[in-house]
């Protein structure tokens, strides 16, 4: 996962995530980007679903935050990336959080691990007490 070599092609847009409606908005924004990048229908749906999971995580576990999303390009391939940032309590045990079925709330415990499987690039950075940042990217095949 070499998410660092991603070059920003366009100005990323920032969307605050503070209510349930913002989760819907995040989904719509990512959908528009995915269509713009001409991702296949399956990849669009996968990316939108991953964004939906992470946006809800940002809201529910992070206590709200922002989504920064945009089109990216690497080695002539286009892609869509979205970064979810919150300044919530953070994740004490990353491996545990990425375990299928483990949840700190009352969800299914598949959101974070599912989002990793749904996307091509997935980076998770978190420190207890210092918030969480999750980046996902889906590349055009």
């Amino acid at each position: 996962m070499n998410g660092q070599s991603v070059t920003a092609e366009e100005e990323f847009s920032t969307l605050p995530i503070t209510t349930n409606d913002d989760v819907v908005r995040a989904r719509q924004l990512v959908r528009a980007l995915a269509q713009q990048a001409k991702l296949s229908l399956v990849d669009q749906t996968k990316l939108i679903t991953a964004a939906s999971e992470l946006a809800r995580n940002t809201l529910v576990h992070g206590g709200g935050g922002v989504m920064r999303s945009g089109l990216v390009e690497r080695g002539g391939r286009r892609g869509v990336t979205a970064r979810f940032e919150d300044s919530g309590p953070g994740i004490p045990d990353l491996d545990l959080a990425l375990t299928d079925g483990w949840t700190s709330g009352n969800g299914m415990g598949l959101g974070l691990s599912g989002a990793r499987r749904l996307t091509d690039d997935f980076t998770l950075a978190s420190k207890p007490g210092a918030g969480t940042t999750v980046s996902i990217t889906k590349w055009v095949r």
Partner: protein
Amino acid sequence: MTAERRGSERLVDLLSGQEEKLVGQWIEGVSHTLRGRLSAGELGHELRELYAALVAALRSGEDWRAEAFSEVRALLTELSRNRARQGFTPTETATAVFALKDLLAPSSETAQEDITAYLRLNRLVDALGLFTVETYAKTREEIIGSQAEQLLELSTPVVKLWDGVVAVPLVGTLDSARTQVVMEKLLQTLVDTGSDQAIIDITGVPAVDTEVAQHLLKTVVAARLMGAECTISGIRPQIAQTIVALGIQFGDIVTKATLADALKHALRRLGTENPAVAARSAR
């Protein structure tokens, strides 16, 4: 205090002295900004009433929150509510009030006393204008709220497909509030129609994430508790692949690609339980 009193009196004098002329100017100024979207008679009536109430209220002071201004506030509330419902912009609504200032706009020859009166009117009109905008915004929020509620009701029809088979076609985003409505309606319809086969069709749901899946599973479990069999249909290829990647288990819940397949399945289930129904449906 006496100067204060005099200023007030001067303002009332100015406004009531040439009432007909000033009201006429006001109506003309406002109707210009509305570009004929409100009939002249309606607007004239509205503003005339407001003007009279304002002059009457000014006789007892300039505090717009005071009891004397209650009629002015009521008229303004009505005005902004009507404007919000008729689809006027906030600017168009507020301009109706702010245009009052122009009536006493001072020139270089205006007496000091009249300028003071104008400034007093200015302060009052600003407050009333803000009040109008606030009422306007509140009304718009009410409208949006009631529309969202209507949408919630509209978007969840439970239809009877066959004797003993009901279906809910879901369209759009499935959040907790909507799922609650869907579940309640579905379970109630199962009872009302005496059905024991339910189909939830998700063809119109753009993305199934874990929250949506969880809501669906809960609805199915609730239907089962009531003795009904629940099928989920409308699983398109991209949704199926996403569900697999997410790792959601639908367990022993029957899922179908199309509503037609689900109906066929439901009828078969009905038939094995009750041959008479099968005979009827075969005809």
